[in-house]
């Protein structure tokens, strides 16, 4: 009859209920994994795409440059056309960034107004090719030379490095909020909460069991996610990745407490589910689970800090993928724990044993 026995058997009952629920298993584990495979697998490791040039007839400087400098092939893709109109059409359509033709010693570059950046890049590449050709042709020693390029640590991430922690953040948030909200509403409606209230089981045991099961499920989610990402997509974990475990737990606590507020307020399963989805999906988008927020406008980046998921994602990215030290996840952990305390307080005030 001790609190510990009640806790253990309630935790076991909740866990079995979850494990035997195919729908819950799907949405907690398989669904996010599907997203991981789709996003990381299909989008691959693309960075910005190569520039594409339509060569009209023969442009000797271009051909010489392409054969002389192997690095150029990484940035330029040259397609030859005999028909000028066809080549210009390609530029108009945006399939080529620029078209180049040469008559005598004059090189003409045709660009479209549509993408100024790409057009500018194409023009400057052609320009530098022409100028280097001039220097070579003059036979004089160039006044300036380029040293070996130095690479800088790349803070922007390869796809899998980004998607694993971010999608995992979304999966954890989903499972956390759903788990708490669903359980509370379902148990209240079925009368199980009343029945538990009539047993000598201490109330902390009931809540403690829910928290324990959610943390265990979250741990499993994380293990599966990281495992699949490593095995299939070559995810590299940074050295402080272990910090993601306490971070993940803080996140789960935060989302459980949010779920608790929803579960305390909602009167039916349907309203609990609806409100949960209304919160989770926008939060996942705006919190940076589906795409990196560096490409979002500044005001959006600032706004995203309203969402707990933003903090979780950022912390996870820091220690799992960006190679930052364990302290980099500490502020995020504290914010998440703070959210957990706040919403737990609200949830406990709103909590009802039954719908009377």
């Amino acid at each position, binding site marked *: 009859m001790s609190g510990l026995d009640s806790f253990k058997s309630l935790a076991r009952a909740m866990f079995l209920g979850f494990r035997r629920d195919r729908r819950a298993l799907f949405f907690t584990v398989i669904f996010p994994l599907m997203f991981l495979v789709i996003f990381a697998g299909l989008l691959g490791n693309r960075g910005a795409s190569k520039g594409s040039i339509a060569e009209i007839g023969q442009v000797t400087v271009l051909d010489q440059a392409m054969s002389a400098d192997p690095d150029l092939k990484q940035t330029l893709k040259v397609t030859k056309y005999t028909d000028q109109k066809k080549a210009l059409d390609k530029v108009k359509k945006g399939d080529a960034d620029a078209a180049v033709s040469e008559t005598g010693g004059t090189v003409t570059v045709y660009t479209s107004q549509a993408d100024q950046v790409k057009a500018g890049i194409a023009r400057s590449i052609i320009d530098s090719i022409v100028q280097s050709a001039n220097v070579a042709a003059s036979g004089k020693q160039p006044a300036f030379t380029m040293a070996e390029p130095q690479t800088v640590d790349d803070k922007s991430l390869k796809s899998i490095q980004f998607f694993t922690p971010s999608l995992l953040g979304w999966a954890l948030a989903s499972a956390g909020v759903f788990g708490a909200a669903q359980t509370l509403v379902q148990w209240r409606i079925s009368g199980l909460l009343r029945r538990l209230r009539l047993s000598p089981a201490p109330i902390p045991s009931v809540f403690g069991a829910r928290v324990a099961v959610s943390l265990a499920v979250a741990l499993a989610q994380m293990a599966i996610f990281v495992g699949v990402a490593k095995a299939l997509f070559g995810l590299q974990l940074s050295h402080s990745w272990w910090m993601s475990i306490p971070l993940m737990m803080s996140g789960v606590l935060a989302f459980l407490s949010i779920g608790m507020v929803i579960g305390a307020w909602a009167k039916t399963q349907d309203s609990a589910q609806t409100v949960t989805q209304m919160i989770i999906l926008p939060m996942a988008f705006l919190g940076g689970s589906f795409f990196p927020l560096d490409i979002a406008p500044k005001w959006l980046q600032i706004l995203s800090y309203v969402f707990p998921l933003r903090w979780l994602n950022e912390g996870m990215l820091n220690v799992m993928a960006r190679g930052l030290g364990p302290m980099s996840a500490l502020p995020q952990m504290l914010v998440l724990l703070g959210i957990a305390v706040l919403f737990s307080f609200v949830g406990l005030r709103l909590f009802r044993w039954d719908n*009377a």
Partner: protein
Amino acid sequence: MSKTIVVDELRKRYGDVNAVDGVSFEVEEGEFFGILGPNGAGKTTTLEIIEGLREADGGTVRVLGLAPWPRNSKLLPRLGVQLQGSSFFERLTAREQLQTFGSLYGVPARKADEMLETVGLTEKADTPVENLSGGQAQRLSIACALVHDPEVVFLDEPSAALDPQARRNLWDVLRAINTEGRTIVLTTHYMDEAEILCDRVAIMDGGRILEMGPPATLVRRLDAPVRISVPTGAMSIEDARALPAAEDAHDDGVSLVISTRDPSAVVGAMAAKDALDGVQIHGANLEDVFLTLTGREYRA
């Protein structure tokens, strides 16, 4: 010896409605006590207050000498409660339900199998609770209420939504646990259930107890006429009304029904006329008691 349950001038309001309006009664140890009345009578609210799920606005409750409100963990292990609707853990088997509930009271896991046998659910031990029939689920509910060997058992409409066969099976189970010495308090809107199972019955409506006592006593106290019915055509209405001690006679085309407070006289006279083929004799029942008390139709 002090009573097991003492309820004194209990009151509970919901807005303008007096759900429980000055209810008082006592239940002895080992008694099978029924609270009978239509929906909305206040039975469930009364029961919830006694169980400790709700706070009364006025009056006192004592169960086994203790107050059930606020939540009293010394009292709770001695109470067994079966609530309306089946409150089970999702996707757990019958045995697992009993094991889980049992462990909340410190009951060893093997007790689960004993309880399954008591309520006749041994073959369903490994069936998930969602796959049990209505009757089986109710029996499992009762088993979950009894798994920790409580002294006092509260049952709220235990046979609601059960077919007649399942109800009778349930009554057997309830009789058996009462025989073991447990005090049982049952609410129901089935008159026959209250008549058959209960030692004493409180008839409740509008938040008040209208009458209380053993069912047979309440019925006899009514001094209602006996109804003797034979198939139409056994005799004419005029002849029926002329029978000695016959108070009234009706014929609805199927049966001729004669009411009397001296059945021997009427039956004797009809026997002399050889008019007793297919006879049915009904006395009053609790429903008549209720009709008399409230002067209106019983709405179940």
